[in-house]
């Protein structure tokens, strides 16, 4: 049987790569490989997954140096000479093995005012807001709304690695979808929250986030949109 040589990060911030031999199978995903190691070789291996079908965003890891969603990444696509190196996501503290602490990642969504806030004076008795599907705002929001919060963009971002306070592509993309929500009631605060050295202005448009996003979202475009929106707000004296 064809065997895969897999080296897996074991430990936390300090640790080492440990090697495992995993039977190669057809249509095998990287998550299948990790699961095989835990269930058949070493039950102490820690990793995170839930849906296994690319919906939940839990299983992202660094595979041969590149952040990927492992459930939808075929071994055939990424293995070089039947070898794989699997590590936790970069730019996040490692709890154990392949499990990272995502708190900072999601706290930044909150810091970027990633929650929907209804407009002043609206009540639950109001009729549904009607948003035309082809309105520019809805189209812009649609482009970014399918984020599953996997952290691949955040782990791939150079600016995050230089400036740990940088809100990062996912949080800024989220803010951009809300800026384009015509029901939104916190535009000014959100734009102020995403401006500056830790926000959209820090983006270098390296496009790693857009290149790596498994959902084919382009956070770089969302961040550019935020730069424009923040600039217009500043020019109008609304920032």
């Amino acid at each position: 049987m064809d065997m895969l040589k897999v080296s897996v990060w074991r430990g936390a911030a300090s640790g080492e790569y440990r090697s495992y031999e995993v039977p190669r199978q057809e249509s095998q995903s990287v998550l299948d490989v990790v699961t095989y190691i835990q269930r058949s070789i070493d039950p102490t291996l820690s990793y995170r997954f839930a849906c296994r079908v690319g919906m939940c965003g839990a299983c992202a890891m660094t595979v041969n140096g590149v952040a990927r969603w492992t459930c939808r990444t075929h071994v055939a696509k990424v293995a070089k000479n039947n070898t794989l190196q699997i590590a936790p996501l970069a730019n996040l503290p490692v709890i154990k093995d392949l499990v990272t602490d995502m708190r900072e990642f999601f706290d930044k969504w909150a810091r970027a005012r990633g929650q929907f806030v209804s407009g002043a004076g609206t009540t639950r008795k109001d009729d549904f807001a009607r948003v035309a599907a082809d309105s520019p705002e809805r189209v812009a929001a649609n482009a970014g709304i399918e984020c599953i919060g996997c952290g691949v963009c955040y782990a791939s971002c150079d600016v995050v690695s230089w400036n740990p306070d940088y809100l990062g592509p996912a949080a800024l993309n989220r803010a951009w979808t809300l800026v384009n929500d015509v029901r939104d009631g916190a535009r000014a605060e959100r734009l102020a929250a995403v401006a500056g050295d830790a926000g959209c202005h820090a983006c270098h448009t390296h496009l790693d986030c857009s290149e790596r996003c498994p959902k084919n979202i382009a956070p770089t475009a969302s961040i550019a949109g935020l730069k424009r929106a923040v600039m217009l707000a500043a020019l109008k004296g609304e920032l």
Partner: protein
Amino acid sequence: MSAEIQVPAGAPAHAASARFETWLWIAQRASAVVLALCVLVHLVTIIYAVRHGLTGAAILGRTRGNTAALAFYALYVLAIAVHAPIGLRTLCQEWLGWRAASLNWLIGALALALFVFGLRAGWAVFLG
């Protein structure tokens, strides 16, 4: 506005002035637009002067008392004095992790120096 959002602690102190950062960003982009034009005119002028073998004296002969040239270079110098220090500030922040208020003073001083020395050079060729 009914924005009662729970924001986790730990928001960076140096990101406090969103407005200041945004205006710096706008100033740098706006000065870049001016610079794109000025650099082009400046380069074309240099190439023209070199290809026609103009001497220093001949060039000074054309710039002396030339208010259009003085105005052009004053604008050029102003755009540089705005653009370069803001970029350098970003470099200091990202490469050196220098985000203290002292950086803004240094950058302000650099902007002033670029403006004064640049304008002095423009004035010198105006006087010839």
